């Protein structure tokens, strides 16, 4: 029955039924064929999947990020990043990546950052003579650090699914996110040097200070967010709502780039994005109920533990499974579908749950660039009318860094676990 479920899901996705409805449709068909189960279980599971106070952090972090973008902080952060790294070969490419690292601390969504930064940076890069495909590759790849650096929608999702502390996951993601970003900067440096991409004249220390002052309220936002939840002043959801208030105050009264009439389109588009994500979550919840009802997690665990109980091998297998799934599915959907199946297995193999959360989320972030459903790559290509194949080709060195980063994070847990151990008890 599980094979049948997967088959229908795959067919439904291929004939272009939206992911959320594909999950729902395959779930429905299997439910009709299952005896002694009322169809009411489906809306019941969907409701249970969405009705969660912790998941409320998703729309709020999205809204805070969108408000910050609408208030024009992108240019401010860009100016600061450019004053620091613009002087190196491929300065603008590096600026893009550094901006994404900072933006990662403001919004929790790779696709939102990809659009906000890409709409300014990709035209600028092309104007300075970077090839279109390279501009696309830099933009699509740099955006994936956003959901690794806290706050992160994926960590919220993982925390809700496994009952692990979202705060701890946030803290654990900081170092891996920045490291992968630095890896991307190295790639940009070497590629730009080889292809002779331009550098900007170095900024004086004073210019760096001035641009920092102009963007400090945006750049320091993650410090407030993390501070609020590590000290226990706020829960993660409360903190996300306070981030909205912060973004409103900064946008309306400090930077003044945000006008009252901008609020309506920003809130509206946040509602739409929320609906898209949460419908996937609700449907995936019903889908995973069917998988669990058909004993898929036990069967998978039994099958794998029969062959090996070595965590090294198990993690490798899990990584391969998630990478393949990430090529075809949206990251949140993969989490909701696969974590209930894989998590029990990792617990039997005595893998730290926070460490596994980082692995799973970083893995799915790498999947954001891999075609055919590489959300950031597809979006960047659409924005510049670049061919997907060209963008994918120039993405290869960045993808390599992503894979290396994933491997290192998988097999060297201290990278993710040291910071939470230091900051939290």
């Amino acid at each position, binding site marked *: 029955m599980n094979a049948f479920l997967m088959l229908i899901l795959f067919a439904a996705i291929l004939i272009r039924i939206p992911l959320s409805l594909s999950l729902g449709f395959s779930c*429905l068909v299997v439910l009709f064929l299952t005896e002694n189960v009322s169809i009411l279980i489906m809306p019941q599971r969907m409701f249970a999947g969405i009705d969660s106070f912790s998941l409320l952090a998703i729309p*709020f972090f999205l809204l805070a990020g969108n408000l910050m973008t609408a208030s024009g902080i992108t240019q401010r952060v860009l100016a600061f990043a450019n004053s620091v790294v613009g002087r190196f070969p491929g300065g603008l490419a590096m600026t893009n990546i550094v901006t994404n690292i900072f933006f990662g601390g403001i919004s929790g969504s790779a696709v939102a950052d990809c659009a906000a930064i890409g709409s300014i940076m990709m035209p600028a890069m092309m104007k300075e003579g970077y090839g279109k495909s390279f501009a696309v590759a830099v933009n699509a790849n740099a955006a994936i650090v956003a959901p690794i650096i806290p706050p992160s929608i994926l960590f919220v999702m993982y925390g809700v699914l496994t009952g692990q502390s979202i705060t701890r996951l946030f803290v654990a993601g900081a170092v891996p996110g920045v490291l992968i970003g630095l890896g991307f900067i190295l790639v940009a440096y070497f590629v730009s040097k080889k292809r002779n991409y331009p550098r900007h004249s170095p900024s004086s220390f004073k210019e760096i200070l001035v641009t920092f002052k102009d963007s400090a309220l945006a750049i320091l936002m993650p410090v407030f967010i993390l501070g609020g939840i590590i000290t226990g002043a706020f829960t993660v959801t409360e903190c996300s709502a306070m981030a909205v208030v912060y973004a409103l105050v900064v946008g309306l009264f400090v930077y003044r780039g945000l006008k009252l009439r901008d609020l309506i389109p920003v809130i509206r588009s946040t509602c739409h994005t929320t609906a*898209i994500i949460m419908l996937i979550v609700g449907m995936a919840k019903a889908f995973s109920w069917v998988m669990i009802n058909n004993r898929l997690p036990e069967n998978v665990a039994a099958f794998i533990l029969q062959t090996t109980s070595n965590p090294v091998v198990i993690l490798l297998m899990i990584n391969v499974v998630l990478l393949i799934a990430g090529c075809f599915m949206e990251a949140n959907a993969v989490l909701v579908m696969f974590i209930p199946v894989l998590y029990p297995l990792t617990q039997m193999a005595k893998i730290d749950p926070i460490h596994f959360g980082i692995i799973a989320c970083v893995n799915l972030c790498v999947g954001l660039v891999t075609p055919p459903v590489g959300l950031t790559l597809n979006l960047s290509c659409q924005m510049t009318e670049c061919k997907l194949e060209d963008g994918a080709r120039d993405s290869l060195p960045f993808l390599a860094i992503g894979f290396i980063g994933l491997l290192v994070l998988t097999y060297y847990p201290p990278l993710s676990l040291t910071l939470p151990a230091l900051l939290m008890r």
Partner: protein
Amino acid sequence: MQKLLDWMEKALDAILILMMIVMGSAVVLQVASRYIANRPTSWSEEVARYIFVWITFLGSAVVIRKRRHVDVSVLTDRLPPRAAWVVYLVADAAMLFLLGTLTWAGIGITAVAHRQLSAAMDLPMSLAYAAMPIGTGLMFVFLVATMMWEWKHGRRIGGGEQL
């Protein structure tokens, strides 16, 4: 017909915006009541959660009108237009079947939930569950309207929205 739906879409968007504002205010109020009034509110979390369910399903209805739910076009992009139309027809039929069934099942679960009271506010749970049949029902209507528009104009609306 399309005019009526345009109007419905606008109305739904207005409701969504209002709901988002109330949802955010509820959580901010919860923080404020704990730190300033020193008396945490019990209803705020429940209000926010149930509104969240409503936003999900009403928003999904608005989003389906321009086919902005995330989808995958690797196969259909490579098909000749006529074949693609046939594939789309099958896909839409499957979607309508799902949405119709969900509306019906949603009414069922709402009826069951009507007899339960929410933990904090003592309101019938059907107030929250009703988001599902209403939302999926509206999705059904909007999808039919979109299909009719496409049939008349001979082209497909939009593609998947990037999240």
